[in-house]
């Protein structure tokens, strides 16, 4: 009997022992009155004064490392009004306030961009970085953070770069090991570093090997994944200039299964190089210069070799269908900025550049047996051909006090150029539908945030921003792949206009003694919203198996988003915290087309007005109870996630309602000695069988992909430091 089987077999006993331990320890809550660190996850925001005035959330390194999952998308999903699209066991694609894909700018440090290779988004940006390499995640829920590149409707910044705390540490070894029973998944990450007064060097690497998970009904889903990573960081103190450093990160995925997609990821190799100059001294009137250059590249290979139709005739097919697609991307960029005080006004100015290229091909093979003979037909064609998007931007930000009101303002202008070497032209007598000629856009973005004190412990923050997002590589140049939730093949559109988002936020914060209250309402109006519209089959027919037709990306007139986040945290007794956080977004199209299906085929389209956007997360609330014991030194957490049913569904997209669910997770963290910390817990304690509204359907079926059922997990943190 393997360890996994043993643990599964004795799961009830293990659970009982674990829960009993938690209950016994919880009985001591009122007896513990010693000092503890306040941990208020619902409203934890750090960063500079500008970020503090934005609708933002922060996830610390500690919180990241204590997650069961090795998937950053899954970790982000725990944030208020942040959700994720699940297509398999890995690479959950983040959705922030209902915004997704290129509407969210996901980048590393000061703007490092990674262009995913997969048109089906098997490899969203977050999947190219391992959680162990991240020091902090900043989520800005709006187009406010303009200093690190063009921002569409939200930003997710992954801070990985070492800072001055990395110096003078001597030799350090950090190890993170983990085991997940449900998936029979194991992870191991090791980091070695050596630093002196003027230098540091760090090398790290690890692997994750996770099997299929089982849902609450006991059904196993083809969801295994395997990843390896390696990273090197080196830096020196460059006098008054700060830190001069170099960084490399490599991530290598293989055999990542996606039951909700027509293919699986066979290989995904990522390389990220960067060199930087980073100021460390406190800001004053002398300008500080920051500079960086970077290069990232991704090779992605996917295919259907794990599917039955690859090797056998699966009715109603009459032949064997084999498909493989590969894509290579590269992105190169740089940024230079100055930061200084003029009087009491903080100023930052700079420019950045990014050049992103993408190439991809697809091969389809059909093996048929006809009249006693075997015939093989093969077709190869481009997904992208020398597609390139260049972006150059100038930005300026300022922060100052106007009497008691703190105001921060940002502006940026971008020059966006795009081109493709593709020779495909689709034209009919009425119009040209696709012609990959080059073009450019000049984009203007701006944001103002004002923090207004309303009392000794409260403040009101108002924010307004306008941003423009040019079409991404997929929306502009993709050729015939089922990339959306609806299984239609999608065709790019080189003529797309930029999306323009005008967003307003109102935030109220109140922090009386041992309490924190935070509420944020927002409204976002997006004009020229980029979405797919159906092409007549006489213009284009689908190429992907299972795709009922072809949609082309087009600008819709308008979409509106309105919603809120609210959280409350309280320390009722010392060492104990309670936090509650909720979030919801409602979004709708002013006008959208609905496809009429008749006799199983597409019979035409009709227009709907004020129809909800598809794939919008349901209302959800997260409750966390934390208690920190001193003797023995144990931290305990009980988390409850309540998600309502989603009944606001898109008629145009023929969406189906999703029932709500309640989950409970429980965990303990124990540090027997200074160098060792052990975390153990149970996720989905009651083995609830459920799926989220954003979970995709299984390919070829109407059934949704279920989430993992109950799992027992253990993480072991080992750390040695010798000066």
């Amino acid at each position, binding site marked *: 009997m393997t360890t996994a089987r043993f643990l599964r077999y004795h799961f009830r006993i293990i659970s009982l022992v674990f829960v009993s331990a938690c209950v016994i320890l919880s009985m001591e809550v009122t007896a513990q009155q010693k000092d503890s660190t306040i941990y208020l996850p619902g409203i934890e925001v750090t960063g500079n004064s500008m970020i503090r005035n934005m609708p933002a959330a922060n996830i610390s390194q500690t919180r990241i490392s204590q997650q069961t999952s090795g998937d950053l998308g899954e970790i982000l999903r725990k944030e208020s009004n942040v959700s994720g699209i699940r297509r398999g066991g890995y690479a959950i694609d983040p959705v922030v306030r209902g915004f997704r894909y290129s509407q969210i700018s996901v980048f590393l440090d000061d703007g490092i961009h990674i262009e995913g290779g997969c048109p089906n988004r098997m490899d969203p940006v977050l999947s190219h970085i391992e959680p162990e390499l991240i020091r902090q995640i900043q989520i800005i829920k709006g187009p406010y953070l303009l200093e690190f590149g063009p921002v569409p409707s939200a930003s997710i910044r992954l801070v990985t770069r070492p800072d001055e705390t990395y110096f003078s540490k001597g030799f350090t070894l950090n190890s993170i090991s983990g085991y997940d029973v449900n998936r029979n998944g194991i992870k191991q990450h090791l980091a070695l570093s050596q630093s002196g007064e003027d230098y540091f060097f760090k090398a790290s690497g690890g692997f994750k090997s996770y099997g299929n998970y089982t849902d609450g009904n006991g059904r196993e889903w083809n969801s295994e994944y395997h990843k390896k990573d390696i990273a090197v960081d080196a830096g020196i103190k460059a006098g008054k200039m700060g830190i001069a450093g170099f960084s490399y990160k490599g991530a290598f995925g293989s055999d990542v299964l996606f039951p909700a997609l027509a293919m699986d990821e066979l290989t995904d190799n990522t390389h990220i190089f960067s060199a930087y100059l980073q100021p460390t001294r406190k800001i004053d009137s002398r300008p500080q210069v920051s500079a960086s250059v970077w290069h990232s590249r991704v090779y992605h290979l996917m295919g259907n070799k794990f599917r039955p139709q690859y090797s056998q005739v699966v009715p*109603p*097919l*009459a*032949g064997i*269908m084999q498909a493989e697609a590969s894509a290579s991307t590269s992105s190169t960029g740089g940024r230079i900025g100055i930061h200084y005080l003029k009087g009491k006004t903080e100023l930052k100015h700079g420019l950045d550049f990014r050049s992103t290229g993408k190439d991809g091909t697809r091969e*389809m093979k*059909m093996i*048929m047996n*006809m*009249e006693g003979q075997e*015939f*093989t*037909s*093969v*077709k190869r064609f481009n997904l992208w051909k020398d597609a390139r998007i260049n972006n150059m931007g100038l930005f300026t930000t300022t922060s100052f006090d*106007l*009497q*008691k*009101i703190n105001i921060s303002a940002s502006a940026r202008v971008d020059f966006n150029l795009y081109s493709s070497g593709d020779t495909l032209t689709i034209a009919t007598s009425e119009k040209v539908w696709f012609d990959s000629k080059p073009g450019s856009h000049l984009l203007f973005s701006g944001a103002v945030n*004002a923090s*207004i004190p309303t009392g000794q412990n409260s403040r*009101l923050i*108002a*924010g*307004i921003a306008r941003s423009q997002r040019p079409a991404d590589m997929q929306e502009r140049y993709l050729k015939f792949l089922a990339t959306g939730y609806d299984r239609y093949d999608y065709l790019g559109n080189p003529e797309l206009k930029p999306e323009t988002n*005008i967003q*307003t*936020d*109102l935030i109220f914060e109140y922090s009386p003694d041992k309490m924190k209250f935070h509420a944020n*309402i927002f*409204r976002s109006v997006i004009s020229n919203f980029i979405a797919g519209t159906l092409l*007549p*089959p*006489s213009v284009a*027919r*689908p*190429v*992907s*198996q*299972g*795709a*009922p037709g072809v949609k082309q990306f087009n600008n819709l007139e308008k979409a*509106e988003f*309105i919603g809120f986040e609210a959280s409350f945290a309280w320390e009722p007794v010392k060492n104990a915290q309670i936090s509650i956080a909720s979030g919801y977004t409602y979004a*709708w199209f002013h006008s959208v087309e609905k496809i009429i299906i*008749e*006799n*199983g*085929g*597409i*019979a*035409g389209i*009709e*227009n*709907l*007005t*004020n*129809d*909800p956007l598809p794939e919008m997360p349901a209302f959800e609330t997260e409750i966390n109870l934390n208690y920190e014991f001193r003797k023995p030194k144990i931290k305990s957490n009980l988390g409850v996630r309540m998600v309502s049913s989603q009944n606001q569904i898109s*008629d145009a997209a023929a969406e189906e309602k999703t029932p709500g669910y309640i989950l409970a997770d429980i965990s303990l963290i124990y540090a027997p000695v200074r160098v060792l910390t052990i975390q153990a817990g149970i996720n989905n304690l009651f083995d609830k069988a459920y799926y989220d509204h954003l979970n995709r359907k299984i390919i070829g079926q109407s059934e949704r992909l279920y989430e993992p059922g109950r799992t027992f997990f253990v993480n072991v943190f080992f750390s040695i430091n010798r000066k």
Partner: protein
Amino acid sequence: MTSGKLKYLIVSINLALFLGSCTEKDKPQPENEFRINFVHTVNNINAEFDEMIYTNAAGNQYEVTEIMYFVSDLKLHKSDGQIIEPATWDDIHYIDTNIPSTLEWLAGKNVPQGVYDSITFTFGISEEKNQSFMFVNPPEVNMAWPEVLGGGYHYLMLNGWWKDLNQVRRPFNFHLGIGQIYKDNSGQVPDIIGFIHNNFTVRPSGDSFSITSGQTNTLEINMHIDSWFDTPIVYDHNTFGGAIMQNQEAMHVGVENGKDAFSVRKK
């Protein structure tokens, strides 16, 4: 401006921007429709499948198990020479006697009203449009024609059984698609030196018909199965055998016979 006034100004601007939205759904009126129903007959009587009850002009006893085919590029002709192409949405339609839903085709909407003299369509798919991997989903994908034999898709699969000269029940696959020219008529794939596109235009027999605005107008296209084996050339299964994908001579007979295998009437 004082701090207080500024405070109210900022909040007022923000609140103003939150105003204004509605979520009522409006649906437009349905459009005028032009539909075609496909029926299949033998000797002008609805075909019965899987019954060895028919005899063709060559004297072969035969039965039909299934028929699959494409029609495309539908045109409506007026007596004054005006031609209307109603199928602006999808110009290729697949018919499968195993799938009842394919026997009805919403061929167009808002077709100009008036009297039409006749219709024409391409039986199969034109050379320009008949590209391999154009269809990737069942059932159409199963009509794929091997790349080495010309690629694209079958125009017709008419499958059944006949009794040979020894009264042995043998299968026939009366399939039409791109034909091949073989060096020295070898019939071997490596000897293929050219291809022949066997798609053809059909003008079904039948009376003129009218299209009326504001209602569903339905035509019935009848495939006379027996005609594939008769007029103008008598087709003998004992001569051509059960499989003709690599037999251009047999397919050519099929092409000639297929041109008068259809009739049309207004329902």
